[in-house]
C-alpha cells in the first residue's frame, strides 16, 4: 500500500478506524482470557490467581485439591460457558445479518422451541434416540428437533424469491407450534419430570463434561472458518438484497449455508446447556456498537463478546446467592439486560 500524504484524510481516518477495530477485538480476547482465569479462581472455595494458574498449567506441582477443583469442576464449566457464549453470539450475528433484523437471535426462528420440545420428549415421556448413554439423551433429542426445525426453514429459504420476512413468519409459526406442544407435554407430566424440565430450560453449565466440550469445540472449529470465508458476502448482504445479487452473490445459497451454520451452533448450545437465549441477541449488539458491521471485525467481536458475557454470568451465578449456583440462563438475562439497555440508550443519546 502506498502511503499517501495529507492529500487523503479519509484514507488516514479509515486506517485509524481499522486499528481501533483490531484493538477492540484484541481487548475483547484479552478480557475473555482474564474472565476465564477469574472463573477458575472463584467459586465455593476461592483460589488465589497464582494457585489457579499453577493448577491449570503445571497440574503436577499444584496441590491436589486445587488440581481437582480446577480440572474436574471449574475448567470444564468455564470452557463450556466460553464455547456456548461464542457459538450463540456468532450464530446470532449471522442470523441478524441474513434476516436483516437486529432483533433476531438464534431463537427467533423457533430453534430453541424445537430443542425444548425435544428435551421435553426425553425428560417427560422418556422418548429419545435408542442406544445412547443416559447423559446424552436430552442433548441428542434437543439437537435432533432443532435440526428438524432448521431443515424445514432451509427448504423454504432455498426457494427463489424468499426474503427475510417469509423466513421470520415461518419461524414465528414454528415457535408457536413447538411451544404449544411443549405446553401439552408439561400439562401431562409428572411432578418430578416437570421439575427436571423446568430446570433444564433455565440453562446450566453444571451438567457439562469433556465429551460435550469436545463436541462444541469441534463444531466451532468447523463452522467459524466457514463464517469467516463468507465475511465479505455477509457484509454485502447488509447493503441490500438486490445489491448483493448484483455483485454476483447467490443470496439464496448464502442464506441457506448460514442457516446450516446457525443451526449447528445454536442447536448444540441449547442441547448442552438449555435455553440461554439472551447471549445470541446481546453479543452481536455490543459488537456492532464497538466495531460496526463490517463482518471482518463484527463476526469475531460478536463471538468474543458472547464468550465474555457467558463467562461473567457463570462467575456471577455462584456469587449472587452464597452457597447456591443459580441457573446461568437466569443470570445472563438479569445481568445482561441492564448492561445492554445502558449501551443501547447511551448510543441513542450520542447520535
Amino acid at each position, binding site marked *: 500500500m502506498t502511503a499517501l500524504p495529507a492529500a487523503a484524510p479519509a*484514507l488516514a481516518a479509515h486506517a485509524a478506524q481499522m486499528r481501533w477495530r483490531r484493538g477492540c477485538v484484541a481487548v475483547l480476547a484479552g478480557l475473555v482470557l482474564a474472565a476465564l482465569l477469574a472463573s477458575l479462581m472463584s467459586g465455593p472455595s476461592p483460589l488465589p490467581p497464582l494457585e489457579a494458574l499453577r493448577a491449570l498449567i503445571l497440574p503436577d506441582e499444584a496441590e491436589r485439591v486445587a488440581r481437582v477443583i480446577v480440572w474436574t469442576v471449574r475448567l470444564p464449566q468455564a470452557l463450556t460457558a466460553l464455547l456456548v457464549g461464542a457459538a450463540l453470539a456468532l450464530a446470532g450475528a449471522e442470523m441478524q445479518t441474513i434476516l436483516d433484523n437486529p432483533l433476531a437471535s438464534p431463537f427467533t426462528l423457533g430453534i430453541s422451541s424445537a430443542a425444548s420440545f425435544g428435551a421435553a420428549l426425553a425428560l417427560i415421556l422418556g422418548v429419545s434416540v435408542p442406544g445412547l448413554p443416559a447423559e446424552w439423551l436430552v442433548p441428542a433429542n434437543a439437537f435432533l428437533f432443532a435440526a428438524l426445525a432448521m431443515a424445514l426453514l432451509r427448504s423454504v429459504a432455498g426457494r427463489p424469491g424468499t426474503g427475510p420476512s417469509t423466513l421470520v413468519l415461518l419461524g414465528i409459526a414454528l415457535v408457536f407450534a413447538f411451544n404449544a406442544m411443549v405446553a401439552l407435554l408439561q400439562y401431562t407430566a409428572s411432578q418430578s419430570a416437570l421439575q427436571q424440565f423446568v430446570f433444564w430450560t433455565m440453562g446450566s453449565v453444571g451438567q457439562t463434561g469433556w465429551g460435550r466440550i469436545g463436541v462444541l469445540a469441534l463444531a466451532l472449529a468447523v463452522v467459524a472458518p466457514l463464517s469467516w470465508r463468507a465475511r465479505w458476502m455477509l457484509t454485502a448482504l447488509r447493503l*441490500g438484497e438486490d*445489491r448483493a*445479487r448484483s455483485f454476483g452473490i447467490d443470496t439464496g445459497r448464502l442464506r441457506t449455508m448460514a442457516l446450516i451454520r446457525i443451526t449447528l451452533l445454536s442447536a448444540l448450545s441449547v442441547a448442552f446447556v438449555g435455553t440461554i437465549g439472551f447471549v445470541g441477541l446481546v453479543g452481536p449488539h455490543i459488537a456492532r456498537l464497538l466495531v460496526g458491521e463490517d463482518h471482518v471485525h463484527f463476526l469475531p467481536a460478536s463471538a468474543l463478546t458472547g464468550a465474555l458475557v457467558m463467562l461473567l454470568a457463570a462467575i456471577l451465578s455462584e456469587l449472587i446467592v452464597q452457597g447456591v449456583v443459580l441457573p446461568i440462563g437466569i443470570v445472563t438475562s438479569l445481568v445482561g439486560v441492564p448492561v445492554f439497555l445502558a449501551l443501547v440508550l447511551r448510543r441513542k443519546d450520542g447520535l
Partner: protein
Amino acid sequence: MSGGEALRAEGLRVRLGRRMVIDGLDLPEMRPGEVTALIGPNGAGKSTLIRALARLAPCEGRVFLGDLDLLQQSAAAHARLTGYMPQAVQSGAALTVLEAVVTALRAVPDGDRSDPVMRAHAALERLGIAGLAQSRLDRLSGGQRQMASLAQAMVRGPRILLLDEPTSALDPGRQFEVMQAVQALVRESGIIAVVVLHDLELSLRWADRIVLMQAGAALASGAPEDVVTPEALGQAYGIDARIERCSRGLLHVHADGVLARHG
C-alpha cells in the same frame, strides 16, 4: 477501451407473479461510450427492465453483448460485466460509505490485485464525494445515499452500467455533476450505460438515445429530439407539452396542461 461490442436486447418478456410486466420489448442497439435514457410514466416497467438486464428479475428473450449471450452467462460472470444501482436505496447498515464501496469490490473478488481501499477511494473522488468517505451509511441524507449507491455500482469497472433513477433525490447541481460524471466515465472507458430518468431535460441534455416506455413496451426510441415530441409526451404522460430550442441549442420541455389520460 473495449472493442465496439454493442448491447442488443430483443423480444424481452418479464413475468412478475401472474402479470406480464414487459411483453415483447425491443431495445435499440446500444454501443460502448453511449448513454441510453429510459423514460416513461410510473409503472411503465422501467425498473423491471433494468432489473431484468441485471438478471435480478427472470427474463425471456435475447440479450447479447457482442456475441456473448448474457442470459446464458453464470451469475458471477454476468455480475462482473454489469453494475446495477437500484431505485430504492435502502440501507440501515452500520458501515461507512468507504466501507460499502470496499465491500462492493471484495464481495466477489474480480482478480484485480490493487488495494480495494484505494480503488474505492478513487471512485468516491471521481464522484466528488470523498468527503463522505467516513460518514455512516445509515446517517446520510437521501441524496448523499444516492451518491454512495452510485459509487457502489461504478466501482467494479463494469462494461454495462444499469442505473435506476440515479438523480431522483439530488439537488440541481448534483444532478448535473452525476450525469456529467456518468457520461465522462462512459466515454472514457467505453461503457454502455442505461439510465432511467424522469427528468426530460436531463434526458435531452445527457442521453445519446432515449427509449420511451409505456405499459411494458417501447413507445418510441431513437435520437432524443425524435423521441421527445409533443405527440409522444401527450400519449405517454397525458401532458400538453411544448418543446423549444433555446439560444444555446438545447431542447426544453414546457408542460402547459394535462390531457385526459388514456391507459
